[in-house]
Structures are given as structure tokens and as C-alpha cells.
């Protein structure tokens, strides 16, 4: 086992191994652990640094600077531009996510198999179960469940809607309430404290702060990757050649790296899905103190078949402030009620599809995405249902995240809100689940086969959110991990 800091590499260096894996997020880390445990010589390359609980304190600024890419401001271009924060550190986005772990609904997996030729999509049970066990995935226990979720749960029962506690990957969560800033207690079993150490313990090598700039190929065979190590003042080259190259940079960066390296094919970079989301905040007459509970603990399941899922989404005041309406005195007065605020997010399963291209010859992705009217309507529907749930739970006023009507105080106002039809540009949209840009399936409609092996070139596998053929209708990390596990096992025992 070796865990090395690429930024400290002072001279050019060359390594040979069986499998090189670029990226240590949900897809990369699981693949690495499986391959290393099977006895393969594995090298992982990660652009970001290695942080665990001892480095973290819930400070948003620190996280944006060190755990997120672009200071958390990664975004798509289009109408409207949509921020899509992604992780850039060992563990990737699993370091900053909320820990929600759902299996993809069966009807989606069946469709992937039937319509997209994603062979075996309906046979992921073993992979799901293994990951669930390894990461200790279980529904939020009573001790970590707090009033913001309880209120909404009670209200939606009254409304007759379906809902359930969220299963999360945690082992000893102590509810610091700062999941999105990196877990200071290491209770969340992100890849940095689970699969990456597991891979290292099985003999893999990890290079941190070693961004890969090119995939190397000889004719039709990928033979490894070239990473940039050292410092900006004294850069060095790290060359890793391997039998198999696994690209797991996430759905934005994987296609950019492939295309910048001259690996194309008609599907690479297309079919970008995001699960556009919006945060709805409610003010209650009494205190909730939402920072004292697990931020994402309850899911409103009622509308999943309609492509809408609504989940708790509490964030600290420095991250919540921008979605509170108003400026100046008005904004300050609303912020003063922070202990009485609750917040849920409405996410939609999008039919709109964007595209990722590299910026010039760099590996930096430029993602374009235009929200289609049907998706906008679904988002408004999701926001309206969230407002309805909050009002039913006794909220005094609800901040919709829609600039055309930022505050809703009653059911009458909610009815007016639903008739508004605001343009997408007036909705506060963010997205957390980029996927689909190197979709897996049959050769006519996909970039890779069902195990992530690219059709156009040999010796390369993609293992991350890029592979999902469509929106999977729910939080994707568990499915990304299950597909990665299955792909690694296929590599080991074809």
C-alpha cells in the first residue's frame, strides 16, 4: 500500500500496473477496492487532496476551497445556467453529499435493460446488497431524526401521501448537521473513509493531487494516462501505463477527458442529465434548530413515479442565506428567524438533456443544458407540493425559490403560485446528480457496453455516473457504486 502526494513529486515519474483508475469518487473507489481485493495491481489517481474528519469542522468556506471543484461554483451554461457542485478530493462527491442511498426503482432498471440494452440491470441485487453492507446503509435512526423532518412526516401522513425515512451510508453518525461540508466525525462512510482505505489495504497505490491531463493510446488500444504532478512553478509528469484504464471522473469530467484525449464516438458527452433541484425554505412559529439533526432524513415518495422526489435538505446559515428572499434589512430580518427555518429540496427526474465538451484542448468541461418546458412544469409542481407539505405542517411563510413569487403564506397563495408559469430563468435551480454522458447499453445507442467498456477503443472502462442511460429517478450514488462493483468483477473474472 502506498498513499502518495503528487504535488510533492519533484521529478518525472513512470509507473506500470494492471489497472489505473482516474478519480476516487463513488465509481472509482468501489472499482479500485474490488480490483485490488482480487489481487490486481491497482494505481488510483486523484486530482484533489485527501481530507478526512480530522481536517474538517463544518466550515463551508473551507469545504468549498478544498473539497469542491471551482470553489463550489461549477455550472452548466444555458437557459438558465445551473450550478452543479461536484467534489474534487479523495472520495469525490461522496465526501460532500448527504449520504442518501437508494436503489434505482425496478421500473427504471427494467427500462434500461429493455430499451437501452443495459444487460443485467435488473440483476444488481447482489451488488446493491454488498455495498449496503460495506457502507452500513440503513434508514435514519430515531436518535438522529429531528423536528424538521418529523413535522413534515406528520403533515404528509395527514395529506395521505407516501413517504419514508431515508437510508444513509453512515456508521456512527453523530449528527453534526454538516454533510455537505464534509463529515467532521467520519460517521458518513464516504469513499475517503471506506472504499479508498479498503483498496489501499488490499495493496493499491493512491496518488493524490495528480490531475490526469491525457489518456494515452497506441492505435486502438488505450495504454494508460499522463497526469500533471508537482507544483505550478515546478510541474512534473506522472505517467502510468496499464493493461486497463478506468476513467471515473464523474459525468462532467469523464467525457471532457475522453474527448480532449481524442477518444470520441457519437454518444460521448451527450445525454447529460442533472436532476434539477430547488430548495424550499419554510419559517415556523416556533424553533426547530434544523442544524441539530441529520440534514436529509425524510423523503416524500408520493411523486417518484411522476419524476419528482422531495427530500429534507437543511444547510448551515452561510449556505442558506442566498435562498432567503430580499436584500438589506428585509433579508437580515428573515435570517434572524433562522432557528425557526426548515428546508426541503424538490428534485426532478429530467427529460431535458445537455451536452459536455472540453474547453479547447483542456480537460475542463463546458456543459450546456437547457431546461425544457415540461421539466420546468415538473419543477414547479415539486415546489408546489413542498410548499403544500410545509403549510400543512404549520409553516407561517414559505420561500419558494421562484423569483416571480418568492414568498407563499397560505393555500390561496399557493393556488396562485401554481397558476404562475414563471420562466425557468426565474427559478432558483441547482443540480447535484450529473449523469448519462457516456451512457452504457447496446452499441447502437450507447458509448460503452453494459460494463462500462467503451465501444470505440480497447483497454478502457468508464466507471461513474456517466454510465447511467437515463435519469435513475432517485439519488444515484448507490447505483453508481453497484455498477462499478459489477464492472470490476467482470474485469477480474470475465
Amino acid at each position, binding site marked *: *500500500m502506498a*498513499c*502518495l*502526494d503528487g504535488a*510533492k*513529486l*519533484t521529478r518525472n*515519474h513512470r509507473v506500470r500496473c494492471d489497472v489505473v483508475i482516474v478519480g476516487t469518487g463513488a465509481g472509482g473507489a468501489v472499482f479500485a477496492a474490488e480490483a485490488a481485493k482480487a489481487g490486481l495491481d491497482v494505481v488510483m489517481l486523484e486530482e484533489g487532496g*485527501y481530507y*478526512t*474528519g*480530522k481536517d474538517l469542522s*463544518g466550515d*463551508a*468556506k473551507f469545504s468549498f476551497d478544498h473539497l469542491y471543484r471551482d470553489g463550489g*461554483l461549477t455550472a452548466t451554461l444555458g*437557459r438558465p*445556467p445551473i450550478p452543479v457542485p461536484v467534489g474534487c478530493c479523495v472520495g469525490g462527491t461522496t465526501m460532500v453529499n448527504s449520504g442518501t442511498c437508494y436503489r434505482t426503482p425496478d421500473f427504471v432498471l427494467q427500462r434500461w435493460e429493455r430499451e437501452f440494452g443495459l444487460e443485467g440491470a435488473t440483476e444488481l441485487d447482489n451488488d446493491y446488497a454488498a455495498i449496503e453492507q460495506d457502507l452500513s446503509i440503513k434508514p435514519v435512526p430515531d436518535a438522529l431524526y429531528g423536528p424538521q423532518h418529523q413535522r413534515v412526516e406528520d403533515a404528509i401522513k395527514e395529506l395521505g401521501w407516501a413517504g419514508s425515512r431515508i437510508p444513509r451510508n453512515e456508521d*456512527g453518525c*453523530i449528527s*453534526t*448537521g*454538516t454533510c455537505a461540508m464534509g463529515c*467532521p*466525525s*467520519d*460517521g458518513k462512510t464516504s469513499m475517503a*473513509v471506506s472504499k479508498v*482505505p479498503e483498496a489501499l489495504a488490499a495493496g493499491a497505490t493512491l496518488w493524490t493531487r495528480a490531475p490526469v491531463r491525457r489518456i494515452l493510446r497506441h492505435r486502438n488500444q488505450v495504454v494508460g494516462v499522463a497526469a500533471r504532478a508537482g507544483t*505550478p512553478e515546478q510541474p512534473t509528469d506522472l505517467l502510468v501505463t496499464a493493461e486497463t484504464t478506468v476513467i471515473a471522473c464523474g459525468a462532467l469530467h469523464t467525457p471532457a477527458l475522453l474527448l480532449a484525449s481524442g477518444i470520441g464516438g457519437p454518444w460521448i458527452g451527450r445525454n447529460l442529465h442533472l436532476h434539477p433541484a430547488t430548495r424550499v425554505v419554510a419559517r415556523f412559529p416556533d424553533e426547530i*434548530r434544523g*442544524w*441539530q439533526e441529520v440534514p436529509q432524513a425524510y423523503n416524500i415518495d408520493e411523486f417518484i413515479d411522476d419524476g419528482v422526489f422531495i427530500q429534507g435538505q437543511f444547510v448551515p*446559515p*452561510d449556505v*442558506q*442565506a*442566498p435562498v432567503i428572499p*430580499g*436584500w*438589506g*434589512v428585509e433579508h*437580515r430580518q428573515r*435570517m*434572524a*428567524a433562522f*432557528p425557526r427555518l426548515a428546508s426541503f429540496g424538490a428534485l426532478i427526474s429530467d427529460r431535458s438533456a445537455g451536452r459536455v465538451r472540453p*474547453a*479547447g*484542448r*483542456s480537460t*475542463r468541461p*463546458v456543459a450546456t443544458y437547457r431546461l425544457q418546458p415540461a421539466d420546468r412544469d415538473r419543477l414547479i409542481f415539486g415546489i408546489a407540493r413542498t410548499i403544500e407539505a410545509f403549510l400543512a405542517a404549520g409553516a407561517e411563510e414559505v420561500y419558494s425559490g421562484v*423569483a*416571480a413569487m*418568492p414568498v407563499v403564506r397560505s393555500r390561496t397563495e399557493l393556488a396562485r403560485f401554481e397558476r404562475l408559469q*414563471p*420562466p425557468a*430563468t*426565474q427559478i432558483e435551480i441547482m443540480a447535484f446528480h450529473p449523469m448519462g454522458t457516456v451512457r452504457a447499453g447496446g452499441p447502437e445507442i450507447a458509448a460503452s457496453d453494459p460494463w462500462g467498456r467503451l465501444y470505440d477503443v480497447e483497454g478502457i472502462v468508464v466507471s461513474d455516473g456517466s454510465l447511467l442511460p437515463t435519469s435513475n429517478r432517485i439519488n444515484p450514488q448507490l447505483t453508481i457504486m453497484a455498477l462499478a462493483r459489477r464492472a470490476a468483477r467482470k474485469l477480474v473474472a470475465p
Partner: protein
Amino acid sequence: MSRSNDIDTLLSPLFRVLAIAFAVTGTLFFLFPDGTIDTLNRAGSWLGLPPAPHLTHRFWLGLGTAYMAVVTVLAWRISPAPSERRLLMEPLMVGKATSSLTCLLFAIFDQPFFIYIANFVVDGALVGIVWWAWRQTAPNGGGRGGGHLDERSNQLLQRIAEAFLPPLDGRAGDAEGIGLGGRVAAHLESQGAGARIGGAVALRWLNVAPFVLGTPRTLSRLPVDERAMVLDRMERSRWLILRTPVVALKLLLGLHAYRQPDLRADIGVDDDWLNARLEQARARRAAGEKGPFPEPQSPDGVS
């Protein structure tokens, strides 16, 4: 992310847009030389300038078209990797500067046709843009070093910060007291050239944007409460060009304001809860219940 990658992200699309613009205008001049002159003459007539005559023969049109083809190819070739190909910016600047200055001379010594003046201004501005790109991509240029936000941007940021977090009776902290503008400036600077330059452009735009809303003063000259009202209107606008910069700035202002312990305490967020848990996490680590996790080592000496 290396700085050259960062600045190229900004410059690549810029040069691609320039190349397309040169190709389109070059084609229009070539296909409709007299129509182009007529259109510009009409604009000039509003300013009381004399109309330029039509072409009498096509020899100069051939040379002009060749020039447009050359600048198009230059911009197109620069666009994939501006930092690496910065030398190509030099002939582009020479071409545009020559075109701009000769038109200025013609406007002074021949006749003040609008077509001369327009070309002087447009090509002159293009020289400025390409020169700026050339400096940003210099081996030790602003695009690669840390770089600072300029003075004017800092002032504007301060004005907007005041509108976000004005002093309020009975409440702790305000923008000036916590140096909010400076904190956001430092944030933009730390994100590299793209964020710094994008931030400076956005701030200047926001400063004049009140005119679009019918407020006949720049943002920085409005009293603080009106400033807040105008920013609120922009935030609610359906026009992305008004809304996006306001939303992005509010994100940074909120982030830097409400991480200040005073302000957190003021809104009732006691960090005791978190601190107690951080302590608990430390104890667990000390007891070996969590971790230790691998620590990256210096690779010196790896074989």
C-alpha cells in the same frame, strides 16, 4: 486546476466567437459591399456625417476579404489553446491595429465617414481585447499568477456588500464592520483569473444595470436602502443577464457574512452544538474508534 487551463477556459470561447464574427462580417462585406456601406451610412447620417460612396471597382475588396480570411484563421487557430498559441495573437493585433489606425487617419485627413470611425472604434477595441488576452497568457502573466481585483471592483463590491448587510438596530455586525466586500474580493481572487475577471465584468455591469430598470443612477451612487431595493428587483427579474450576477454575488456574500461567529450568534445559531460534536469526534479518533486513515506521503524515493 492549473492556471493556464483556467485562463484558457475563458479565452477559448472568446477566440472562437471572434473567429465566427470575423468570418460572418467578412462574408457580408464580400457579398454585399454596397449594402454594408449603405447601412453604416444610414447610422452616420443620424450623427450628421457625410455618406461614403459605393465601390467603383473590386480590387480593394479582394484584398480586404483576404485580410478577413487571415484574421478569421488566426482567431480560429488560437481558440483551442490560447496559452500555447499566444504568439499567433501578435499578427492578429498588428492586423487589427493597422486597420483601426488607418481608418482614423482617413477619417481625419480624407472625410469623416461613419464607416471609418466605426472601424476605428471596433478594431481598436479588438486590439485591446487581444492585447489583454496576450498579457493574461504570458508565462508570468496575470492569468497565471494570483492577481488582485482592481480598485474599482473592490469599491463596487463594498457598495453591494453594504446593501446586503446594512447596519440594523439591535443586531450585531454589518458589511463594513466585518469587511464583507474585502472577503468576497479575496474569494474571487483565490479562484483564479476566470473568477476574478468574470467578477470584475459582472460588477461593472451591475453598477450600470439600474438604468435598464429605469433608475437613472448607477448602483454605487444610490443610497443604501435604494441599492438593496434595486438589487432585489434584479434578483427577481426574468432576464438572466440581470438575475445571474446578483444571485452569484448573493451566494458569496451570504457565505462570507454568515460564517462570522458574531453574525451566527446574532441569528441564534449556537455553535455549541457543533463544537460538542467536534469534541466527541476528536475523542473517538483518539480512542481509535475512527481511523486513522491513510495520509499522503512525499513520493520522493518511490521507484
